[in-house]
């Protein structure tokens, strides 16, 4: 298993405020790596540096073996980004969006690529409508579909489920899981502990400019003292109730 992403001593400040003080982590090929952090922790900043949108102040970062600062073109060939806010063209239809990206990735048959992705993401019926008529979940699916055009080996997803309802969130989780099963390396950020639990092979917690804890879920659990056993009736969470009711609709 090779290394897909390697980050060492990464630093970044914005106008005097130090957002990243010294960030280190490593992502192995084929893993789902989750970066967990609260609002303003610097998750997006890390994603932007790794996707060549932003230059770091110090430290090094390599993606697919290429240094992000000195070999940005090689990095861009290896990745795709689904940013925190859906980056779809609002005036083109869903299908045209996909065809456009397929052309920009210089694929031989943009239309076929678009059709198969529309099918895979359950967007065939909405293919010829503008994204402004889509629901939040559909938009996000289109956004992720755009990132899969050309099958890049490493995919960045910046808070892919923020703002989605539980059902749509689970759909995104399924997509992510399928991608990982297909061998794609996934770098995911989230604010939700639960999402990290669900998906991640490895989790890193970003806090005050550093990775304060990292490892598998099991390893992280060991870091905390074992919970005291208490006998209380377990209350289902709102999410579980919601899903129990809605889930009976079956597969779509």
């Amino acid at each position, binding site marked *: 298993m090779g290394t897909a992403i390697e980050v060492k001593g990464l630093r970044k400040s914005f106008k005097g405020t130090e957002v990243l003080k010294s960030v280190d982590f490593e992502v192995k090929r084929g893993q789902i790596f989750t970066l967990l952090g609260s609002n303003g922790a610097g998750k997006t900043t890390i994603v932007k540096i790794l996707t*060549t*949108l932003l230059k770091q102040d110090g430290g090094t970062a390599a993606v697919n073996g290429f240094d992000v600062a000195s070999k940005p073109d090689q990095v861009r*060939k290896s990745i795709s*980004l689904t*940013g925190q806010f859906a*980056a779809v063209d609002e*005036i083109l239809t869903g299908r045209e969006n996909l065809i456009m990206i397929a*052309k*920009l990735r*210089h694929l031989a048959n943009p239309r076929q690529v678009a059709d198969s992705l529309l099918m895979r993401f359950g967007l065939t019926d909405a293919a010829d409508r503008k994204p402004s008529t889509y629901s939040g979940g559909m938009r996000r699916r289109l956004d992720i579909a755009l990132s899969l055009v050309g099958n890049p080996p490493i995919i960045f997803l910046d808070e892919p489920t923020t703002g989605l309802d539980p059902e749509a969130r689970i759909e995104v989780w399924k997509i992510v899981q399928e991608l990982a099963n297909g061998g794609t390396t996934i770098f995911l950020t989230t604010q939700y502990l639960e999402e990290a639990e669900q998906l991640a092979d490895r989790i890193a917690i970003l806090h005050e400019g550093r990775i304060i804890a990292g490892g598998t879920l099991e390893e992280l659990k060991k870091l905390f003292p074992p919970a005291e056993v208490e006998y209380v009736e377990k209350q289902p969470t709102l999410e579980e109730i919601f899903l129990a009711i809605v889930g009976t609709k079956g597969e779509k």
Partner: protein
Amino acid sequence: MESTKNYFFSDMGVMLGRSMRHVFRSMDTIITVCITPIAMMLLFVYVFGGAIQTDTDNYVNYLLPGILLIAIASGIAYTAYRLFMDKQRGIIERFHSMPISRSTVLWGHVLTSIVSNAISLVVIILVALIMGFRSSAGVMSWLAVAGILILFTLALTWIAALAGLSAKTVEGASAFSYPLIFLPFISSAFVPTDSMPTVVRVFAENQPVTPIVEALRALLAGQPVGHDIWVALAWCLGIWIVAYLFAMRAFKR
């Protein structure tokens, strides 16, 4: 690196196709750009025209160059708007994280500006013909007219690019065009400058619109253009280069 270079033109073609779709799917961008100058032309010809003293007996001929420049100045505001929206919606970030030459995004918008402005100008010229515009210009003169108009569009489009890239709000992205639209009014576009008070006249005769208007007018009338055309070209090129450098700097950030 080579591969991004090789694909430069095909990528730019994709970008052009994208933003031309934006233009054609919101027809108001073309209609608004045509309507205002046409209304102005009607107003000046049929309302004020009788009171305005020019050397020509055909006021539409006199007016048209200035009207065309006003149309361009209002047309490029949409380029700023479209660029601003791309930046806001994060689609530029998607493009920038892809293996395509970065400047294709900008050039796509610039080409779109030229094509959509050209469409508006043709419409306006057709209306002018109905209103009595006549030209004795030959093919070469028309080519020169087209060349100056394209160069002027390019120069203003890069100002628009700069505005779109550095604006913080939608309003800010298009507000810059108001002074540009206003500039032809303080030039020889509507009335000869010698009727103006000295201070205004000095300004009018030394700002870019006057030589451009004079050069266009002479070309369209099939008359010798004199040195106006060189001053016009110098202004256009100068504005273009300065705006290009600043826009590129804003883009790279």
